[in-house]
């Protein structure tokens, strides 16, 4: 009697042309649309060999709301309310961009009080956004504690916004011609209280997570993006600065009152995940520096320079404006036919849309776990990709 002895090959068929059962086969895996590290609905199609990523194909569009199409039937004041639904963690900066571009095109000059409050609000939001990113990065890499810490600090800044603006997330505050409401009398004192609380917290972040050997192993020398490639791939913001390119609109083309504040543009040296991580940590300190210099000297004046519901018509033409949000350069192209207060065409250059493309160049060759670190270091907000 013969007993048939089975081999591994009977269970898993080796690929065609394989020389032994140790040879592996490439396969496709969907990561998303619902995956914890996507922080929204983003689908990545991975071509894998074992655990090694061979190719990443992003398939976005799950949160596409057609914001650009909607803009073609709304006036400039109404559009403001759509912008904070794009990158909801940079809501005020998105408001500011449209206001700034419309003001420039329509020839509206705002007063120093408005500019100072706008700058303060934008920097507070950058802080809030980076604090949240830091917590979420920890969670993505398997450390749950930073997530709780990050959210705790985010809530404290959120309370500050809520007191002035009335909302915690989709904040409409900055509009063409000024602000929607004035800041309250106690604003400066409360901001200083929050800063005094945050400063030691940032030191705690370093001792809690940055110095952690596991985190360092997971981030250092992973996903290296050299400066030339980063520029060619259209990266901006902390991703580009992490690669050592000092492209920061706040410094290069100061808007608001950034020219009155002293701060440094933070750049990395290697362009790996760690550099992108530490650029953001350091940017938080710079934001605190900017706020500290401005908060005591908010000039007096009205908070609106136009009538509240005044129609704003832009002369015929094409206008491009941009701003440095927490994730990079948000640009807007406004095309006006000069006939009404509704744009003929409006297009947003979103930083997340362009930064996402970098993942296709960064991930191949790394393991799935490294892809998670790379994704986290890009700090993507999905509704801003899809718009």
């Amino acid at each position, binding site marked *: 009697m013969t007993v048939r002895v089975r081999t591994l090959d009977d269970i898993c068929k080796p690929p065609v042309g394989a020389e032994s059962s140790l040879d592996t086969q490439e396969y496709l895996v969907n990561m998303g649309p619902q995956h914890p590290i996507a922080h929204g609905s983003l689908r990545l199609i991975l071509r894998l060999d074992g655990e090694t990523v061979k190719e990443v194909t992003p398939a*976005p*569009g799950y949160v*596409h709301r*057609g914001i*650009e*199409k909607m803009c073609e*039937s709304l006036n400039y004041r109404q559009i403001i309310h759509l912008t904070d639904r794009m990158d909801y963690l940079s809501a005020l900066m998105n408001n500011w961009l449209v206001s700034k571009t419309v003001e*420039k*095109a329509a020839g509206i000059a705002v007063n120093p009080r408005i500019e100072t409050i706008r700058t303060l609000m934008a920097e507070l939001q950058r802080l809030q956004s980076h604090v949240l990113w830091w917590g979420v990065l920890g969670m993505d890499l398997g450390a749950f504690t930073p997530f709780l810490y990050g959210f705790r600090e985010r809530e404290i800044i959120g309370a500050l916004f809520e007191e002035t603006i009335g909302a915690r997330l989709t904040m409409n505050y900055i509009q063409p011609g000024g602000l929607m409401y004035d800041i309250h009398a106690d604003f400066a004192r409360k901001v200083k209280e929050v800063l005094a609380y945050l400063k030691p917290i940032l030191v705690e972040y370093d001792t809690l997570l940055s110095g952690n050997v596991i985190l360092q192993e997971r981030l250092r020398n992973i996903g290296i993006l050299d400066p*030339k490639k980063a*520029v*060619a*791939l*259209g990266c*901006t913001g902390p991703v580009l600065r992490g690669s050592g*390119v000092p*492209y920061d609109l706040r410094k*290069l083309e100061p808007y608001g009152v950034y020219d009155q504040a002293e701060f440094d543009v933070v750049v990395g040296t290697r362009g790996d995940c760690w550099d992108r991580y530490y650029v953001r940590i350091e940017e938080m300190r710079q934001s605190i520096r900017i706020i500290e210099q401005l908060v005591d000297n908010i000039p007096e004046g009205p908070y609106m320079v136009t009538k509240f519901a005044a129609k704003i018509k832009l002369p*015929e*033409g*094409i*206008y*491009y404006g*941009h701003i440095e949000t927490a994730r990079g*350069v948000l*640009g807007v*192209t406004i*095309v006006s036919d000069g006939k009404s207060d509704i744009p*003929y*065409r409006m*297009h947003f*250059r979103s930083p997340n*849309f*362009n930064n*996402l*493309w970098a993942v296709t*160049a960064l991930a191949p060759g790394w393991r799935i776990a490294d892809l998670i670190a790379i994704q986290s270091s890009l700090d993507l907000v999905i509704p801003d990709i*899809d718009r």
Partner: protein
Amino acid sequence: MDGEALNQAVIALEPAAAKREKADRPAVQVPPEKLAALALALRDEPALAFDLLLDHTAIDWIAEERFELVYVLYSTVHGHYLMVTTSVPRGAPVVPTVSAVWPIAHWQEREVFDLMGIQYDDHPDLRRLFLEDEWQGHPLRKDYKDDHMLGLPK
């Protein structure tokens, strides 16, 4: 380089180019057949060195029966900006891809193809980006209509 000098430098580089009026920054328009060559020259000319394609989009000028394509360029070397535009007829919106010059164009052109229906000649992976492959039409065109659209409030 300042605005006017930049326009002159580009026109010297490509005689078929002309100033694009009514733009708030240096802007030139070129015929679509000259676009690929100009793109390469803009990137490689040391005095211009436009290495970052910040943005690419399209405008549907339905009354004039044309699409206007807009490229916003930045130079990380010199710190200057340039807007390049080109117009293609609405009936045959074909334009060469610039994805070989600026890799990010690969991604940005797919968005414009999806929403505006511009055909990019030689694009390595021309697929819809946000909408599913079976979607009919291109929503950002001015004459686009589907069953889900609501009318404008009167």
